[in-house]
C-alpha cells in the first residue's frame, strides 16, 4: 500500500527541471501525469469511436445509392492528395511550434503556430471547393445515402480542423500578449495532440474513403 507522499508530480515538470510537487502543492497529481494531458488523451480515445462510427456508416452506405452520382464517381484524387499532403505538413509545423516554445524561442513558436493555422485553412478551403464542385455535379447532401454518409464524415472532420484553427489562433494571441511562457508549453502540447489527431483521422479517411473504391 503506497502512501500519499510517494505519488509523483506530472511528467512535464521533470522535463522542465522544476522541483517535484508535493501533495497539496499546485501541479501535484495522483497519477504522476498531468491531468489536462490525460484528459485530452481520454477525449481522443473517445473520438476514435466517433470517427469509427462515421467511417463505418460510409462503408455501409457507399454502394447503396439508387439515384444520382455516388461519391467515388466524383473524387479528384490528385486534388485530395495535395490536401492530404498539406494537412500532413501542418502536423510537422505544429510539433516544431511546440519544440520552439520548449526551447524558449517565442518568435519561432508564433511563426510555426500561424503556419500550422494557415495550412489548416488551406485544407478547409480545399474541402469547401470539393464540396462545391460535387454539388455542382449533382451530388447534394440528400441526393442518396452514400452522399449523406460522405458529407457527414468529411464535414465532421472539417469542423474538427476548423476548431483546431481557432485553438491555434488563440495560442498565437496568447503568445503575443505574453501569456504563453516557456513553463506553460503543455498548453501548446495539448492543442498539438488534438491537431495531430485530426491529421491521423484524415490518414484513415484518405485511404479508406478515397483510395479504396
Amino acid at each position: 500500500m503506497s502512501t500519499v507522499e510517494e505519488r509523483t508530480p506530472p511528467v512535464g515538470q521533470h522535463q522542465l527541471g522544476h522541483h517535484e510537487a508535493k501533495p497539496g502543492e499546485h501541479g501535484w497529481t495522483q497519477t504522476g501525469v498531468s491531468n489536462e494531458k490525460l484528459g485530452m488523451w481520454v477525449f481522443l480515445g473517445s473520438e476514435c469511436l466517433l470517427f469509427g462510427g462515421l467511417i463505418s456508416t460510409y462503408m455501409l452506405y457507399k454502394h447503396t445509392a439508387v439515384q444520382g452520382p455516388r461519391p467515388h464517381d466524383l473524387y479528384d484524387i490528385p486534388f485530395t492528395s495535395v490536401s492530404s499532403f498539406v494537412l500532413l505538413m501542418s502536423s510537422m509545423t505544429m510539433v516544431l511550434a511546440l519544440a520552439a516554445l520548449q526551447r524558449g524561442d517565442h518568435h519561432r513558436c508564433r511563426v510555426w503556430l500561424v503556419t500550422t493555422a494557415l495550412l489548416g485553412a488551406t485544407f478547409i478551403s480545399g474541402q469547401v471547393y470539393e464540396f462545391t464542385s460535387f454539388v455542382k455535379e449533382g451530388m447534394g447532401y440528400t441526393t442518396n445515402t452514400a452522399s449523406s454518409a460522405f458529407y457527414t464524415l468529411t464535414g465532421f472532420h472539417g469542423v474538427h480542423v476548423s476548431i483546431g484553427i481557432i485553438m491555434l489562433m488563440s495560442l498565437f494571441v496568447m503568445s503575443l500578449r505574453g501569456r504563453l511562457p516557456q513553463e506553460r508549453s503543455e498548453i501548446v502540447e495539448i492543442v498539438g495532440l488534438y491537431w495531430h489527431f485530426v491529421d491521423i483521422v484524415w490518414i484513415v479517411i484518405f485511404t479508406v474513403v478515397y483510395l479504396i473504391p
Partner: protein
Amino acid sequence: MTTATEAPHVEHEHAHPSDLQYVMIAMFLAVVTGAEVGLYYVNMDFLVYALILGVLMVVKFSTVVMFFMHLRFDSRLFRWVFVTGVTLAVIVYTIVLLTFHVFNGRV
C-alpha cells in the same frame, strides 16, 4: 507494502526528436503518401491493393502517433488510454461491418 522511505516510481520522459528529425519524419510521411497515390493508378488485384494500402495507412498512423504525438516517449498511461480507444473502435466497427456483410459486398 512500501514505506515512505522507498523511492517512488517515476516515469521519466525520454528526449524528444530534434527539429531536423521532425522534418525527416514529415518527409517520410510525404513519401509514403506519394506511394499510396501512386498505387491508386497501378492496375493490380484488389485484395493486394487494399492490403498494401492498409499497411501504409497503419505505418503513417503509427508514425504520427509515436513521434509527433510523443506517445513513444511519454507516460505509458497515455499509451494505454489511446490504444484502448483505437482497439475498441476497430473491434466494434469490424464486427458491425461483418454483420452487414460489407467486406463481401452483400449489403
